[in-house]
Structure formats: C-alpha cells, structure tokens
C-alpha cells in the first residue's frame, strides 16, 4: 500500500515514453486477439510483428525496415508451419489458407 500511495520511492520507474510503448504493445496484442478469427494467426502475426518492431523503434529508416519486413513476413509463416504442420495444432486459418 505504501508503494501505491507513493510513500515509498520506486526504483526503475517507467518513463512516460516507456509507458506509451507498453500501452501500444497492449493495443497491438489486443488487435491480435480481435483479428485472428478473421485473418488467421499467420497474417495477423505478420501485422503484429511489424507493429511491435515499429513500436519499439519508431522509425521508417530504410536500413531498419529492410531487416524488419522480411522477419515480419517469414517468421509467422515459419511458426504457422511449425505449429500447424509439425506440432499439429489447429492454428486459425484466414485468407489464402494462411
């Protein structure tokens, strides 16, 4: 309660910028929960990874995007293959069978 009331000094306090990033990450994760039944986990995962990358490092610098984009596209496809085909998990499927 002392912490909640602000009577105790907290170490590693979050900066407003950190809080903003975390809030946006929550929104992105909530987006995954809402959109997965419509778009499937692989396609939603692609959008999600892209969003997370840009939330953590908000820049459109080509050097960064060139690394982020292939990861955001290929990694969810790999996970779709690993979970859906190898581990036989009924992963939600969306357009294009993804």
């Amino acid at each position, binding site marked *: 309660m002392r912490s909640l009331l602000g009577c105790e000094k907290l170490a590693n306090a979050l900066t407003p910028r950190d809080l903003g990033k*975390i809030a946006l990450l929550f929104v992105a994760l909530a987006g995954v929960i809402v959109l997965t039944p419509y778009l499937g986990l692989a396609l939603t995962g692609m959008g999600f*990874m892209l969003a997370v990358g840009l939330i*953590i*490092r908000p820049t459109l610098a080509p050097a960064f995007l060139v690394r982020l984009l292939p*990861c955001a596209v290929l990694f969810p496809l790999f996970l779709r293959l690993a979970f859906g085909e190898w581990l036989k998990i009924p*992963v939600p499927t969306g357009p294009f069978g993804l």
Partner: protein
Amino acid sequence: MDAFGLLFEGIQNAATPTTLLATLFGVIIGLLIGALPGLGPSAGVAIMLPVAVSLGGVPALACLAGIYYGSMFGGAITSILLGIPGDPPSIMTVVDGHPLAKKGEAGRALGMSVFGSFIGGLVGLIGLATLSAPIARAALAFGPTEMTAIMVLALSMVSVLGGRNAIKGFTALAIGFWLGMIGLDPIAGPVRFTFGSMELFDGLDFSVVAVGLFGLTAMFTSLNENVTKGVAKFELSALFPRVKDAVRSRIDLLQGAVTGFFVGVLPGIGATAATMMAYAASKRMSKTPEKYGTGIVEGIAAPEAANNSASYSSMIPLFTLGIPGSATTAVMMGGLLMLGLQPGPLLFVNNGDFIWTVFGSFWIGNVMLVFLTLLLTPLLASLLFISTAILYPMVFAIIVFGVFSIGNSMSGVTIALLAGFFGLILIKLDYPPVPLVLGLILGPMLERNIRRTQIQSQGDVLVFVERPIALTLFVLTAIVLLLPVAMKLLRKKKPLLAETSS
C-alpha cells in the same frame, strides 16, 4: 538398484534421437535467453513452455530443463564480455569476469565459467540423483496433514526470504491464493469468482498466467535494452579451460558447488543468493582476498559452480514433494501438470522410468552445454547487438502462437496479456511475482489438503499439531516467520543499549 545405477539406466534411455534433439534445442534456446539481458531463466522457460510441452513426455521436460540450465551457462557470457549480466544469477560473475576480460584474458574467464558451470552442474546432478529417491520415499508416509505443514513452510520461506519486504511477499501470495480459487470448488463443487464466464470454470491455466507474468513482463520492462558497449576481444583457442586454473580454483569450485546445492534446495532463496554466498565464502577462504574484484579466475569459479548447482538442487523439492521453490521450477511444474504428471513422491513410484530418464537427459544436457557454449560463444556475443526491435517481435510472435496452442483458443492470449499487465504493476511496485505464482499453484493444493484433513478429523484443528512431523514443520514455519522480526527488534535494541551504557 542404487541411485547411480538408475541414473546410468536413465542416461541410456535418454540417448534416443528425439530426447537428444529436444535437449539440444532446449540448451541452445537456453544459451540464447541467458545471453540476452532482460530475459532470465523463468521468462525463457515460460515463453518456451507451450512449444516444449507439445514435444510430449521426456523430450518436453528435457527441453524445458535444457532451457533452464542453458540460460545459467549463457548468462556468464555477457557478464564476462560486456560487463552486463545476462540474468540475475550471473551478477557475481561480472565482478571478476569482466575485469579479467578487460585485461585481455576474456577467453580464460569464459573457459573457467564453462568449467565452473560444468562442475557445479555435476555436483548438483549427483545430489539430485542421490537425494531425490530417499526424500520421495520418506514423503510417501506424508498424509494431508504433513503435506499442509510442508506447503505452509515452503510458502512462508518464499514470502519471507524471496524479497526485501515480507509484507509485499505475503500480499502477492494472498493474490495468488485468490487467483487459485477461481473456478470450481475442489471439494464441494460450487463455482467461485468466475463472474459468469464459462471459460473460467476450470480455473486459470497456470502456464498461461506464467507466460504473461514472467515472459511478457520481462519483455515489457526491457524494451529499450539495446547494447551499445564494445565487446571484449577473445580468441577461440583461449576458450578452453586451463588445467592450471582448474587446479588453482579446485577448492572454490567445490565450495561454490556445495553452497549452491544447499542454498538452491531451499524454497525462495534461489541461485542469485547462492552465487553471492559462494563468492563471499570464496573471498573469505582466500589467502589473497584483496585480489577479488580485480579479475581472478577463483572469483569466477565459485559463483558459476554455485548457480548451476543451485539450478539442479532447486528441482529436488519439485520432483520429490511437488513444491516448486523458485519461479523457474514453478513454471516447470506447470509443464509437468500439462503432461498429465503430478509432481510429488508418487512420481517416483508411478513414473520411475520417466523420472530417471529425465535425470539422464539432464546429465547429457550438462555435457552438451560444455561443447555448445565453447562453440557458440562468438555467436551468442554477436546476438547481443541485434536490436530488440527485431528480436522482440519474434519472441512476441512465439508467445502468441505458443499460448494459443495451450488451449487452442485465443482466450489464453487474453489471460496472458492481463497477467503481463498485472506482472508489470507488481514489478514496478516492487511486489515479488514468485509468491503470487506459488500461491496460484499451491493454493488449490493447500486448500484441498486442509479440507481433507478437516473432514478426516471432523473439524478438529488440533490434528495439525498432534502429528510429530507436522508439528516440527509448523515450528520451523514459526521460526522462519518470527526470526526476521526478532532480528529487527534486536538490531533496534543494540544502539539503545549502547547509548544507555555510554
């Protein structure tokens, strides 16, 4: 058959391609997680729990344990090369490891850390194999009364010793108990705290909560942890431990491994405290204590042996009594439950082959890690320079796919998200999350045991102190709870006495 015979048989059984591959996968992931600042063994095991469990049986547990002790090996690499501890147990390795690296002897420091980790793992594993079966046999005589007493002792230790503020520990424990009560009443049957949601009838899935509480929270709090420091230079040939160093540090290695073993077995204390104690003991025993902190191999040997030994010994209460003593073993308990296995003394009776094969896989993993750490050190060091903006989206995606696969439903992702949010609040308000998780796991077990005892004794509460084992355990609990208060009072009295005498 004696413990070593059973262990040898377990090693033979674990040498199947599937288990070997699962162990290899686990230790590599563990090394990566250990090397990354911000993600520790508990977060790593929690994140990989759904993936590992889908491997099933022995490979699943071999993979989870591989992540655990792999991260113990991996944590030292960043501590030595960059002066940044990869996980809390490797904090003490920074003290002498980084100065030694700065002197241009990074390879020597890494070599000693690998050797120390191996020796610590070996001692921990021998202790795990020799003590587990006798403890489990003794625990078979435990009824619900004794189990209640032992759980109360474990929970009091975690809450009192787990953090700097015992009240916060108990508050987190109470929240965990409450969360554990969600769902159907285990004895009478009515529904509790489900707020009309059908999905909460079976209670909260512990593994999903663990992913949120440890995995997501660790990531939320380390979003900006990009490494900008330069890495210390080393040569691959220098990574192999020198015989001279090993001989010179033999006492420190043994002392560290033994200290780590005994500290690790106690619930709530953990590998970090074990490394600190081992380092302090090593310094005290040394003829040249002034050299500690300047970069000497003895200062690396003791904490590295201690943290790996502790990682094995912390599994003893989990496997023999069904009581996890740390965050990582709590998550591993979730894995055992997901595999349909109830940790506790009966595990050795009903699934003896399984458990000895799992111990055998630990042995293989420990040997595997020596070679893998030496081979992968350059890769692990370079991994640190990958931006979290590239690495974390991948880990988040693994979490989403993994949590979905636990219950084949997106409701798990929602619960993990809420647990992550709650974990963030806990961390930032300095409330330890470990008592909460243990409350969530052990709360329902404790409730069942208390109510069974009460039914057997027809409501007589004195039954808890009539049995000698239960009474001893309750007395120990009282000591654990009252000792810090008594010490505090004594410390306050001392200055007063000094003042009056002067």
